[in-house]
């Protein structure tokens, strides 16, 4: 329904022009980035990337350990994430009034806690009197420890010195710690972070275990779409650890023990599995000098033996249903290889093509034109990129339409990808968007430190992000069609649907 009144029409000629100069801009920036990132490897294997950016006297600091939920042994799901929480409890010299006295009590706490878990684990056969007695002893010990602890010191130190964005995150692939500071305070970061890579003390172990249980209630169990994704992943992967929830299964979380958390820390937080990225108003030379002083003496560790099961080839469609008191939604996933496989780049293109922006294929068809969906999005590289992963589609139908109706429309769009080559204009649009993403990423210290450290950890080289735009540039309509034909098939897909209780 055109409302055109006057001759002011934007002609299409300017589109290819835009394409050309955007390409040039991205190229220029790629070059600059490689020239400006200072990369070092310490003798203990710690990898450090520094990018000077003198926009304001601030700096963002990222530490990523190549350790995540995939590295947990079975029966201990949630360990990587629990460890991330415990890392904020301090060290032997931060957060204590007298570590020697405290460490003795801590040892007793763990001993009693282990005994309590053992007894509780007996279920119906547990001795309630024994449990009560152990609980009482634990609580007494915790009170004694409490009098020696200076609580929340890491948080207090960062906050008081102007730290913002302070947080940490745990994924399937990586565990990350980050903060932004006024740039004169960088030594505080080196002091705290090097210390907690060497001498962390897992204080308040059992109350924090209750906190992560609350976290699961809040972020998974109260959010229908997160509940669906949990079922979806467990169905899509039958063997590879991407099948398990990062936060853990409830029955594992309630018994996470001190010894395994400690071992996990030692094995996986080694400097040779760690990348630091620093972006902001610093001098690379003096920052490196500081990092050598503080992080240089951390001992490297032998690479842990990999016990990660490879996902066997999928042999047919898998379907799973979640019945829940909520409006319906659907998740569809297809197995595919991880970066730096060429096919992974093609799926970066398919992701944008299908669901980025109002003119993307799934959005314009399902939300706008047919009015079947409230929302639709796609994700390439779900849930991680260290191992072969999924191309995933998530959508929510608009009442009275059903998830099943939405499903068949999504398949119609996928069939189109296989049969008709993408037009030049549409492919150019996608490439423009990916190039602009790259420019926008450069626009913040924290975002940039995050990207550099992410690709250095996961792809083994931060320059992945530079080459990414170059490889995307070369992708043809035939490449898109070939990847769609190879992976987006019924036998290779998992479908999870949330249906409301009362409609069954």
């Amino acid at each position: 329904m055109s409302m055109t009144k006057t001759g002011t029409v934007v002609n299409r000629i300017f589109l290819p022009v835009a394409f050309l100069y955007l390409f040039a801009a991205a190229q220029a920036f790629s070059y600059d980035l490689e020239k400006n990132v200072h990369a070092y490897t310490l003798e203990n294997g710690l990898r450090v990337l520094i990018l000077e950016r003198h926009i304001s006297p601030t700096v963002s600091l990222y530490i990523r350990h190549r350790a995540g939920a995939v590295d947990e042994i079975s029966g201990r799901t949630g360990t990587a994430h629990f460890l991330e929480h415990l890392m904020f409890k301090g060290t032997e010299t931060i957060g204590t009034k007298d570590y020697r006295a405290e460490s003795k009590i801590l040892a007793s706490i763990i001993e009693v806690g282990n005994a309590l878990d053992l007894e509780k684990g007996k279920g119906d056969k547990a001795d309630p009197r024994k449990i009560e007695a152990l609980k009482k002893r634990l609580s007494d010990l915790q009170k004694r420890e409490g009098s020696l602890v200076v609580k929340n010191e890491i948080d207090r130190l960062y906050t008081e010195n102007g730290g913002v964005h302070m947080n940490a995150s745990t994924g399937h692939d990586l565990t990350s710690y980050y903060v932004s500071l006024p740039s004169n305070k960088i030594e505080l970061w080196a002091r705290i972070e090097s210390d907690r890579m060497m001498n962390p003390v897992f204080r308040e172990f059992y109350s924090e275990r209750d906190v992560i249980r609350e976290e699961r209630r809040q972020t998974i169990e109260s959010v229908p779409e997160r509940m669906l994704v949990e079922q979806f992943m467990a169905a899509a992967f039958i063997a590879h650890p991407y099948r398990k929830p990062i936060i853990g299964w409830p029955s594992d979380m309630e018994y996470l023990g001190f010894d395994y958390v400690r071992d996990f820390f030692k094995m996986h937080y080694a400097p040779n599995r760690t990348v630091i990225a620093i972006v902001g108003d610093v001098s690379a030379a003096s920052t490196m000098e500081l990092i050598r002083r503080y992080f240089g003496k951390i001992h490297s560790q032998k690479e842990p033996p990999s016990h990660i099961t490879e996902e066997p080839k999928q042999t047919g469609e898998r379907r799973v249903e979640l019945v829940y008191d909520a409006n319906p939604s659907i998740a569809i996933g297809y197995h595919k290889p991880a970066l730096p496989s060429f096919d992974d780049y093609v799926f970066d293109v398919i992701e944008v093509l299908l669901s980025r922006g109002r003119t993307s294929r799934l959005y314009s068809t399902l939300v706008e034109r047919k009015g079947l969906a409230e929302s639709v999005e796609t994700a390439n590289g779900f849930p991680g990129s260290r191992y072969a992963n999924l191309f995933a589609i998530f959508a929510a139908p608009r009442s009275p339409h059903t998830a099943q109706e939405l499903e068949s429309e999504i398949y119609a769009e996928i069939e189109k990808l296989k049969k008709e080559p993408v037009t030049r204009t549409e492919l150019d649009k996608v490439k423009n968007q990916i190039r602009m993403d790259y420019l926008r990423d450069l626009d913040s210290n924290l975002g940039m430190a995050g990207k550099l450290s992410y690709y250095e950890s996961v792809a083994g080289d931060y320059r992945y992000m530079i080459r990414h735009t170059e490889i995307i540039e070369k992708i043809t309509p035939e490449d898109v069609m070939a990847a769609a034909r190879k992976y987006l098939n019924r036998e290779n897909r998992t479908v999870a649907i949330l249906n409301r209780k009362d409609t069954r």
Partner: protein
Amino acid sequence: MKRTFFILLAAIFFFVPASSYSGGDTLPRPDDIRYPSLMYNPPRTERTVLDNKIILHTLENREIPLVHVTVVIRAGSVYEPDGREGLAEMTAVGLRTGGTSFMTGDSIDEILDHTASQISFSTNSESCTVDISAHKNEINEVIRIFSWMIRYPAFEEKKIASARNVKIESLRRIQDEPQKIAFREFKRLIYRDNPRGKVPTIESIAKITTGDLREFHRLHYFPENMIIAVTGDISGKEARELIIRHFGDWRASGEKRAVPDPRREGDGSIYYIRKEAPQSIILIGYIVPGKTNHDYYTLTVLDFILGSGGFASRITREIRNERGLSYSAGSNYSARGSYGVIDIYSLTKSSSTPEVISAMKEIIEDIGRKGVTSGELSWAKKSIDNSFIFSLDSAEKIAMQQLMMEFYGLSDDFLSTYRGNIERVSAEAVRKAAESYLSAGSAVILIVGNETDFGKPLSIFGKVRKVKEKI
């Protein structure tokens, strides 16, 4: 040149390795580390008032070939007529997607997506904010299109119908998540009898017609109601020319209407919504003064110590760390011009709900009774002072601060006096502020959860009122 200005300012400071640690076995005490001094005179925006009274702030930053434009329009939900809740948002979506006199909505989407340019509209109770981001070579076309959206909207019927349908579905889906229910009803309760408490319903959205959108647009989208910031890879001169080119000849006027401030007094009773969920949501809210009142600084410090200063703040420390009863527990002070809201929140498993409500109430009352320690006060002040730099750490944020000051009519020295005003807050002022603004009688308390699993009835905390949800 602006660029040199920027770099010179930043270059005042260079990292000087501190002498506190040389790599031996004994690490320095973190509090003993000496830091080099930090100097920062953030660059200032240039302010221009166009002939038609559009206020414009510009700040150049040549680092990346992108231009950001932020536009704030006094067209929020407070101006919606009764029964048309959601009109402000629907108007914003209609402007963005409904096409213009010169180009259809579909063509606009094509151009924006093809050049990877972004124009996104969002609304809150007081304003509509438009965030625009484009490559510098595109910015002229993008601002041209944006000016058409604002000046010559077409509100194409099929786009409005689609927006209406999507909005109704998302309202329906609020019921799926207890947190979303809590925020919707909390807004209604804390701003009861005030236009800020307007919340869209399926019924009100269904009633909104394109005629309503046109009328809302006519009344609230006009030059004098608009503030613009342009930052990024564009000079001040180019930025002014850009805005004048597309908005300079715009002559329109609309309605200027003052909206009364929300009422201070709550009634201290417990509002309850039953929802089958593994966790309860507890929200305690107060209407307090805003940024134009001198107590703003005292309330900022109070809120920091109470629950927004991270793990070391009282609510988080006690409920999360000491008792392990919550993952999210804390407070939040959102200050507007003449008023603000302090809310204190916790999410906890059903069986610990009464314990957490008691703990929250005690912590709040305790500050009013006994005040804060000198250690807490100094920690809060240092934290606020040292992190202040992050509110001005990019050209975009510097410009955003200016927009905020213009919008609320704050004095020119608001930012330059901010740190000094925080520094002057006394422990006694914090105690008094807690006593007078956070008194039990003025609270609005909302609980979303399943009372049968609480172990104790909510009535132990006072009168319980069941909230009738409006979806």
